[in-house]
Each structure stands twice: as C-alpha cells, then as structure tokens.
C-alpha cells in the first residue's frame, strides 16, 4: 500500500485528504497546483478529496513573477 508523491514512494494512509497529505509532506507553500493521476484537484476540494491507494500525486508551487 503506497502512493507516489513527486516521484517518491510514500506510505498510503486510509481516508487521507489532499490537505492532510500536504501537511504530512510538509508542503507549506500557500500557492500550489496538485494533480492526482493526471487530474487537477481544485483548491476548494483539498479538504474533501481523498487520496486513493496506488495514486500518482504531483505538487508544484507557484512563485510570483512574470
């Protein structure tokens, strides 16, 4: 039972939300983009979206400047 977060294998936790996973991974940047198995997770759904077992999660943080 494991998931992949930014290319690294991480322990899967039953019923874990995206918010909880971000906390567990210490991703504290306020502005991020999260994709699970290729699908973008809307920010307002982080607290209610559950991370499935075996999933591939990508997290990128957005930095101001352009």
């Amino acid at each position: 039972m494991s998931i992949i977060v930014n290319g690294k294998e991480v322990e899967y936790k039953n019923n874990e939300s995206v918010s909880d996973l971000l906390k567990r991974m210490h991703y504290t940047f306020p502005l991020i983009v999260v994709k699970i198995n290729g699908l973008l997770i809307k920010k307002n759904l982080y607290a209610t979206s559950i991370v499935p077992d075996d999933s591939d999660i990508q997290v990128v943080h957005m930095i101001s400047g352009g």
Partner: protein
Amino acid sequence: MNETKQKRIQETLQSKTVGIAGAGGLGSNAAIALVRAGVGKIIIVDFDVVEQSNLSRQYYFLDQIGAKKVFTLKKNIHRIYPNTQVEAIELTLEKGRMHEPFLSSDVIIEALDDAQTKTNFIEDIQVHLPNTPLVAASGVAGYGHSDRIETKRLDNLYICYDEQAESSENDVLLAPKVCLMANWQANIALELLLGEDE
C-alpha cells in the same frame, strides 16, 4: 539550413493559434519568439500599461511608456511580421472565466505575475479546457542559476520551473532570467505545436 524541414515547420505553424495570458516579461517575450518562429495567430490578454520599469525586461520601447500593453505588443509584432494575426484583448482576467478568451487556442501560455493569479489561471484552464496544453512558469526572479530551470510535466500542464527561486516581491526581475523562461515556454509551445524535434 534544412529547407524541407523549415518549409514543413512554416506550413504547420501558419495555421496555429497560441493564447498568451499576460503581456509582461514572460508574455511579451514569448509572443515575439513565437511570432518570429512563424506562429500564424497570437491571442494576447492583459490590462496593464507600459511603465518605465518594464523596459528592463519586457518587449517595449521608451516611446511606448503609458500605452496599453496589448495594443503596443501588437504594434511591435507587426513591425516584425505585418501578416501575423494578433487578437489583442484588454481585459483583467476574472477567476472562473479566465479561460474564455482562449477557447480557440492550440496551446496556452500562462504569463501572469502574481502567484495567486497564476494558480487561479491554471485551475480555470485545466478545468474548462482540459484538452488544451498549458505552459506555465514559476520562479522567474533573480539571475544566474540557469541550470536550476527544468520543465515539470504534469500531463498536459507544463511548468517552466525554478523551484528554488524567490518570489518577485522579495527579489529582482531582470531580462536574462525572465527572457530565458519566456523563451523556454515558447520552446515548449513549439514542441507541442510541431511534435518532438527528431
């Protein structure tokens, strides 16, 4: 010069549309690179005017200070290639509707400034136009460290990324790094339009 390849590229790009959100350091330079490469149509959206401080990195000139960026960029593009189609849209993008100007784009470039706006834009495009590839940028401030830049691919979202860069609020914006990332985005866009260079 491989003229057969050049001709094939010109023919393909001529029929393509690239949408660019933001006409600042990233957007103005990416637009110019794509126009020079031969992209047939550019849609450019911005609300801002050219300021003196923009001249350090954006594709504008001293005598253009005070003018709206989108219309000025259109003029600058037409000084290079008068036949490139440019849809210049003066607009502040609003969360929930940020995808609307870009419906006909083959590829979209995120060239916005503020991290919150960037994140909102990525969400709107990926939710409303999930089949249109999106090329974003994160970490344009500072100088040097060119080798830290990488392309992060999250399916059809490509991020030109310097994870260790500071926010522009706490750092400087200078032409070499900003233009490097703008051209990096343009180069990804070309690859998406043409297929991988083999």
